[in-house]
């Protein structure tokens, strides 16, 4: 890949020049990796890593300060019975609750992520979207999860999608302190084809995304293994071409420890072990954490505890 950022200004030409993705082959490869058998010490290590990469999420109309406080308590101490359980990477909430989360998590090192830009549909004027981003940052979010304009992308209006991401990135950079971390949600369930996923990934990275993220969790299908694999190939190739590492975050539909471990294998054998780190890989999930904790306890004690031994938050 010898294309420079300047040369990439002809976005359409660049994005359509990316190698295609063969659906059958991509799904076969993802299925093969899903068949890896992770046992004993490898499983122990993977369970702890999986916990530490979670963006513990609540994105509901019924969210309240009380709910967010409870979730933050869970983030700080996932397993009251076992203080050795690692903490999650971040809490992910709507912007109006970012302040509550920031207060609860102050000094813990756990990040506060806020969705923004008229999440989940992304249907608003750029001014409204930027105001949303600035508000989230002002309320204490140090990570912003924006959505792209899928309508514009599907209409072939790549420049618009690109310029919106650039504008959001600038708003994030203005936050000081090295800027706010920007995750760009592609909403792959609405992009549908793997070719689109690959193009949207590159588009977001060229525009300055720190992370690319599969889904809002509000559209089905949300994260899938093959979609995440295509995105991992994109960040791998992007680093090769430009020397900048971009993170990946599958979100939505990852509920079991088994699923989470499959994603870690996918990361390991697609982008490589450099990405096996909360700085470069996250899983957006709400119910996953308890299954990981349950499996973790099983690995330690040799038997399963009932669900009431794990806190519901």
């Amino acid at each position, binding site marked *: 890949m010898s294309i420079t950022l300047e040369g990439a200004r002809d976005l359409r030409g660049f994005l359509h020049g990316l190698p295609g993705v063969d659906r059958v082959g991509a799904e076969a490869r993802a299925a093969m990796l899903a068949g*890896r*058998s992770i*046992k004993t010490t490898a499983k122990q290590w993977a369970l702890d890593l999986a916990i530490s990469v979670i963006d513990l999420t609540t994105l509901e109309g019924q969210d309240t300060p009380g709910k967010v406080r409870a979730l933050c308590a869970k983030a700080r101490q996932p397993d009251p019975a076992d203080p050795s359980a690692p903490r999650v990477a971040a809490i992910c909430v709507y912007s109006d609750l970012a302040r509550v989360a920031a207060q609860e998590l102050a000094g813990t090192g756990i990040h506060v992520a806020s969705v923004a830009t008229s999440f989940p549909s992304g249907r608003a004027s750029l001014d409204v979207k930027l105001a949303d981003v600035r508000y989230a940052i002002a309320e204490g979010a140090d990570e912003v999860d924006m959505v792209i304009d899928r309508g514009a992308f599907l209409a072939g209006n790549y420049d618009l999608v690109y310029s919106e991401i650039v504008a959001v990135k600038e708003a994030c950079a203005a936050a000081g302190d090295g800027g706010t971390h920007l995750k760009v949600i592609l909403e792959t369930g609405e992009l549908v084809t793997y070719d689109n996923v690959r193009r949207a990934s590159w588009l977001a990275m060229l525009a300055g995304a720190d992370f690319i993220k599969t889904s809002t969790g509000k559209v089905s299908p949300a994260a899938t293994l093959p979609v995440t694999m295509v995105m991992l190939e994109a960040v791998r190739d992007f680093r090769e071409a430009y020397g900048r590492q971009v993170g990946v975050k599958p979100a939505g539909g990852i509920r079991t420890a088994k699923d989470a471990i499959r994603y870690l294998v996918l990361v390991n054998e697609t982008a490589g072990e450099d990405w096996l780190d909360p700085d470069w890989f996250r899983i957006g999930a709400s119910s996953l954490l308890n299954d990981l904790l349950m499996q973790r306890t099983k690995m330690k004690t040799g038997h399963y505890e009932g669900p009431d031994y794990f806190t519901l938050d």
Partner: protein
Amino acid sequence: MPKFEYAPAPESRSIVSLRDSYGLFIDGAFTDTADGRIFKTISPATEEVLAEVTEAGPSDVDRAVTAARKAYEQTWSRLPGKERAKYLFRIARLVQERSRELAVLESLNNGKPIKESRDVDIPLVAAHFFYHAGWADKLEFAGYGPSPGPIGVAGQIIPWNFPLLMLAWKIAPALACGNTVVLKPAETTPLTALAFAEICQQADLPPGVVNIVTGAGETGRALAEHPGIDKVAFTGSTEVGKQIARACRRMHRRNTLELGGKAANIVFEDAPMDQAVEGIVNGIFFNQGHVCCAGSRLLVQESVYDEVIASLRRRLATLRLGDPLDKNTDVGAINSAAQLAKIRELSDLGEAEGAERWSPPCELPARGFWFPPTIFTGVAQAHRIAREEIFGPVLSVLTFRTPAEAVEKANNTPYGLSAGVWTEKGSLILWMASRLRAGVVWANTFNRFDPASPFGGYKESGYGREGGRHGLEAYLDV
């Protein structure tokens, strides 16, 4: 040390119960040899002796052929197709029921990763029996006339690379069409064929319909040249295939041969690159490259050569070589010391001829027969590694500039079993497929098999087809 070290995840061996020694399966029962000898069969991954098996002598072969003849005349050829179908369905279901055991046994005796025997070999074995069970009572619709009859007794000789699958390719169509068989599995991989003999007993298959005589080359020769058989079906090396073809011509005997290959896997600049790299890996490292249709010659369009080689090397570094029974193993053991010696010899020759040799950092187990995944770049058509079948995990990389040149190079081989084309351009796939002289042309995939799809070669890759409607012709008197 890698961050994410996969702990060993071995499939349990306890599901397999091996006898200490095996006789010959003749006329529905295991019998001792009359004039053969006993030899040991091993696990190529550890050189551990697994069991003693029998090398059938000429009179053993004679007994087997006599049993097959009797079964043909007295029972099998007289059964209506729908009754034959029931036996084949039963066998298919028994294979499925015993699939884990058969997969472990195949990996033990052959050295292939359990991932492959479990997910590819054994499911395809069952699929072949199901598919041909469906044909048994519908042969008049196969396009070979109103009531195509069987040929008689088939002598079948199969190789060691897909022991049970090759058995299924041979036995399923033969039985569906009303023939009886004497089958000789390869010298190094007799165990799943002997397990299959037990399955025939479990299925209550009439005695003599399937006979299995283990042994080496001499047993095979005795079978192929036995006056009592009506047809020879052989899969194996071109060298032995030629001997069989000569013998059959002398004896005016029908024969079908599926022999070697040196397939071109052709990658165009507009290929879906990540899947093409997977396809290259699958094309040559699947089953350690012990595949007659392996994509052993990679033809890359020169404009994407650097990119393809870089991606390929990166991908090879993630291949996991080792214990065939470990569920995470991608590359298993070489099947025998003799095959390992041949792979080494040809690889050394490649280097001596001036090609550049590369393997990923890869620790080989101390015992057993192992060879690392290997790529040769800078290979020309004139090099022997571009012409001769290595039958191992060794890829020769060549380049081309235009589609016409790709076709010319792909066809410039004495073989013609398979080819692969990688491009997002549909019209180019069709253009290539109509010009490649190979029995199978895969588009944007490689090494995909299905019982409904005929398989077979051009030129020195053999003649006759196996699978599909076309494959029935080999076992019908048409």
